[in-house]
């Protein structure tokens, strides 16, 4: 059952999808597409859940059904126990769509304020919340700029700000890092982890598997509308019959001893050895952040 075995069984799931089916009617009678085929999933409160699959697998449709944007053909969806087709359920949800667009005629602050008002917020509380959200996503300086002039990354961040404005217990992210540069992706990732730290449930869809692997607690793999696998990330990705030991500054003699020990043991086999690899992303970030720090140090010295 994984690390959530200790979960109190009576706690209401943040998201509960039971045997969801969604058919889309085709242009001609008899022609239709089953986008989602008997998908069930359950997301516990405070969890980060990733729904992954190739393009056209039914991820977005499942997400939209949870958000009430499409009506299930069969099955049900609930958010914290409330039927997701009811408007009430959306008080608990913040949604960041893929490639988000907002009213371009509004500024950043006006946008967040607009969505806050739609959630019933007003007055000083709303104003304070808008300031907090803009600070959280790092857009304070651009608060008065109209969204027309925003880059994709900035739009993504505004999307997050509006998704979080009403302090939801569930945040739904559809491809949150698609088209975003590595630095931006890192920031979004950190933000998601921060949300998790605050006990906010995160439900995200993505086909960027490395990023999902970094942040999710549980994943569901969907393919051609069917859930083909689901479970704890650790459980799903572990190769149980192999063990990894990483040594720091090990001398060649020690390495030779370890090889001999494996040879002498009747069980086990040394499959491979070598230097572990860092990710290209880590290298990129390391180089760029270091370069920035050096530049800052030089300009401080000069001034």
């Amino acid at each position, binding site marked *: 059952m994984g690390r959530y075995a200790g979960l109190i069984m009576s706690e209401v799931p943040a998201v509960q999808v039971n045997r969801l089916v969604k058919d889309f009617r085709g242009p001609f009678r008899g022609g239709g597409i089953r986008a989602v085929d008997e998908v069930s999933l359950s997301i516990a409160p405070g969890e980060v859940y990733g729904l992954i699959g190739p393009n056209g697998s039914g991820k977005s449709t499942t997400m939209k059904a949870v958000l009430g944007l499409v009506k299930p053909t069969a099955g049900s969806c609930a958010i914290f126990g409330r039927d997701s087709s009811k408007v009430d359920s*959306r008080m608990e949800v913040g949604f960041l*769509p893929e490639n988000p667009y907002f009213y371009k005629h509004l500024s950043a602050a006006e946008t967040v304020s607009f*969505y806050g008002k739609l959630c019933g917020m007003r007055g000083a509380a709303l104003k304070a919340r808008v300031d907090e959200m803009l600070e959280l996503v790092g857009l304070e300086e651009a608060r008065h700029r109209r969204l027309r002039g925003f880059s994709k990354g900035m739009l993504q961040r505004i999307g997050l700000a509006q998704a979080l404005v009403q302090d939801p217990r569930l945040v739904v992210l559809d491809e949150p890092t698609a088209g975003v540069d590595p630095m931006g992706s890192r920031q979004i990732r950190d933000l998601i982890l921060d949300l998790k730290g605050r006990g906010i449930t995160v439900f995200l869809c993505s086909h960027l598997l490395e990023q999902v692997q970094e942040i999710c607690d549980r994943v569901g793999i969907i393919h051609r509308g069917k859930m083909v696998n689901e479970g704890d990330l650790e459980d799903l990705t572990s190769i149980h019959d192999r063990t990894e030991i990483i040594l720091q500054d090990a001398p060649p003699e020690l390495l030779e001893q370890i090889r001999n020990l494996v040879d002498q043991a009747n069980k086990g086999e040394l499959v491979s050895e070598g230097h572990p690899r860092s990710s290209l992303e880590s290298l990129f970030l390391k180089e760029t952040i270091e370069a920035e720090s050096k530049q800052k140090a030089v300009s401080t010295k000069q001034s």
Partner: protein
Amino acid sequence: MSDRPETSFFSPRRAGIIALSTVTQLVRMKVFYFLAPIALLFVGLQFFDAFWYEGPEASQPQQELMMHKNLCLGTMMLFSSLFAIVSTALLIPGDIEDRTLYTILCKPVPRLDYLVGKLLGVISVIFVAMLVMDILMVVTLNYRTQVVSAELGEYLGAIGWGEEEVRQGQAEVASHGPSLILQYGVLAHFFKASIIAAVALLISTFSTSTLFTIASSVMIWIIGAVQSLAREGLFTKGEYGVEPGMVDRILGTIISLVFPDFQLFESVSDGAARVMEIGMFDMLHLGGLTFFYIAIYTVLSWFVFSDKEF
């Protein structure tokens, strides 16, 4: 379960927020810039003498003022109707295309609030635009009335009319100038534009093409101008006392039931320009009819929109 309060079926406040956002959107799209050429037109009417107007000695001075009023009211009618159609037709499909609608409907916003908010936003902008045009019309018409009245006074004095008679003549001319009744004509056009906006809203809920929405709305606008002919055929005998045939009756019934009657609003506007006796009760009746139309179209829009998937 969440301890947050339940969302009401309809929230005027939420609709108002969406309306305000729509107004901001339209204003920042610089739609009011059209008022500049209209202002030029209204002011230009001061210098336009109808070719047949040979002055008070040959023609009725009221005719010139009628021409001024008719042109102003006609311009206001055209603008308000076209604006209502185009802006409403752009709103919902635009929100769907941009996916702005997703983020709005993912908040606790009932679809009815969204529709009503959009409609109210468009109607608010039409109201402000018509108010500005109305002020322009009143100012220019007032100026023209004074000029015409002075010309008439001079002419009547020259042909020997007494002071009292001249005053009477001038008073009659002045009665064709700005008046409360003229405002009723403007209000009638505003009512008509509001209904057209509601019609465009209904069509846009099931149309995915802005062009289709605009074209259909324009067709309904045109048919609405002559719907009364179809209705008359059902309630009265035809010319020469001939009853309409079965096919005519069926067609007439369908047209009368489905399409709005805009001729009523045009009649009030024409009558206002001619300074006919139109009172507050007439406007209350017309307002009630307007509200009825808007309510029906909004409810039907909501019915379609509530089932819409994105």
